[in-house]
């Protein structure tokens, strides 16, 4: 199976470990992944507040480039995943918007038809590969590791194509597949604070704090997530959280990292050390 890969800005920066583990795992599973040629920023949530049409056009450029090949596009970052899907929907439902965006893209020699499918790597792992097949690759089951699955917002809402928006379960299945224990908690899809941790820390930090605190309270040794911003918020701000509320100290890993570990891939290839809160204790203590 072949896929195009849309990294987005975060996976080249703060979410580097996500890219590393994603690529390593996909390679080990025999899935071919090619980075989208000359991709640009998807526009994320911020650009939508500046210019609507342009934000559709920004995402549209990526989709137009992707359309040159008949492959699904994988967008691991939640914001990218949402924006690219939102663009497909928006351009389908609004003829006037579509006309403007298509014309603008055309003026730069780009052809947009809206035929690309934008996927999340979790969707690919669960639905294209399947849990049964994944199980065959598990060499080093993470027995005894209690994990709180954290889905965040933008993969399940509002375009939840592969999971339930109230109670998503795909990552739970993956956690079980790697032999770890899934902690049941009600905050799976509650906002991590998004960019507010940076812009309004007094508000953003509180949201992140609620999550790490509840995960720990429910007995999780680690949080596993599927979004670079969620990981950044839960992992990077724990010092500030400690200063403002209390020290929690719980590591936040990507689902691709725990899958990679269970598959026996070396930690160095999975960016395990890139966590600000070290996962070593959690991984060793099980």
């Amino acid at each position, binding site marked *: 199976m072949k896929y195009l890969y849309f990294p987005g800005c975060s996976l080249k*920066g703060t979410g580097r470990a996500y890219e590393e583990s994603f690529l390593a795992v996909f390679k080990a599973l025999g899935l071919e992944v090619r980075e989208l040629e000359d991709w640009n920023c998807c526009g994320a949530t911020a650009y939508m507040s*500046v210019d609507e049409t*342009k934000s559709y056009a920004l995402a549209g*450029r990526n989709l137009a480039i992707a359309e040159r090949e008949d492959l699904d596009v994988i967008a691991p970052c939640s914001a990218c995943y949402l924006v690219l899907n939102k663009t497909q929907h928006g351009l389908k439902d609004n003829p006037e918007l579509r006309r403007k965006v298509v014309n*603008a893209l055309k003026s730069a020699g780009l052809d947009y038809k809206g035929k690309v499918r934008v996927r999340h790597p979790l969707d690919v792992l669960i639905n294209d590969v399947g849990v049964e097949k994944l199980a065959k690759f598990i060499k080093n089951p993470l027995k005894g590791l209690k994990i709180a699955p954290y889905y965040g917002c933008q993969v399940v809402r509002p375009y939840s194509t592969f999971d339930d928006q109230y109670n998503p379960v795909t990552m739970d299945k993956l956690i079980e597949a790697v032999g770890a224990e899934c902690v049941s908690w009600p905050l799976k899809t509650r906002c991590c604070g*998004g960019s507010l941790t940076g812009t309004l820390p007094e*508000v953003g930090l509180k949201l992140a704090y609620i999550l790490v605190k509840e995960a720990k309270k429910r007995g999780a040794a680690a949080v596993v997530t599927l979004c670079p911003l969620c990981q950044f918020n839960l992992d990077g701000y724990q010092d*500030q959280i400690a200063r403002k509320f209390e020290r929690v100290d719980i590591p936040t890993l990507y689902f691709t990292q725990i899958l990679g570990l269970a598959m026996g891939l070396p930690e160095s290839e999975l960016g395990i050390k890139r966590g600000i809160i070290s996962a070593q204790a959690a991984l060793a203590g099980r």
Partner: protein
Amino acid sequence: MPLEQKVKYEGDCDPEFAKWVVGEIGGENLRHCIQCGICSAACPLSLYMDYTPRRIINLAREGFRKEVLSSFTIWLCSSCYACRVECPKEIHITDIMYLLKRRAIEEGVYPRSFPIPVLAREFGRMIFMFGRVNETLLVTDLFLRTNWFKFLGMIGLGLNLMRTGRMSFLPDTIKRRGELRKVLEALDAEEKKEKKEALS
């Protein structure tokens, strides 16, 4: 505490504003709101808002433009879409927050103490220049422009990121910047044309 008169006169409303919201993409179902408040209950940020999302919807459809555009609420929205999936009337509340933010920037009425509009603008600028966003540069730039003091509080985080190799100082850029600019400029031209036609 000074006493403040709370009455609103019909002259304070701008009915055109409500019409405008309804006409925008995402605003279609605005008028169907039954004020059940599930959006506010679902919103993880509503506890910080001056008006709950439900009240913003009501104020918008009644035409209280000033109150809506200068509220904190729209800037606190983190685009988690919880309200949108809960809304029993399928009102695209998140999209309404976006369009209100755009209008607030356009009218220059957003709350000055909030760095969020600045982030949005800088984000756009960086994309126009490089096609991609370097988070480090963006955040640095943001704090330099808004709040020096807060930036100092972030130094610890910066050091941590540097330690784990998650920070880079070189702006990432796409190859065909011209192509992207052409697309964006084509839209600018179209907008100009539209405005001209609207005037004539």
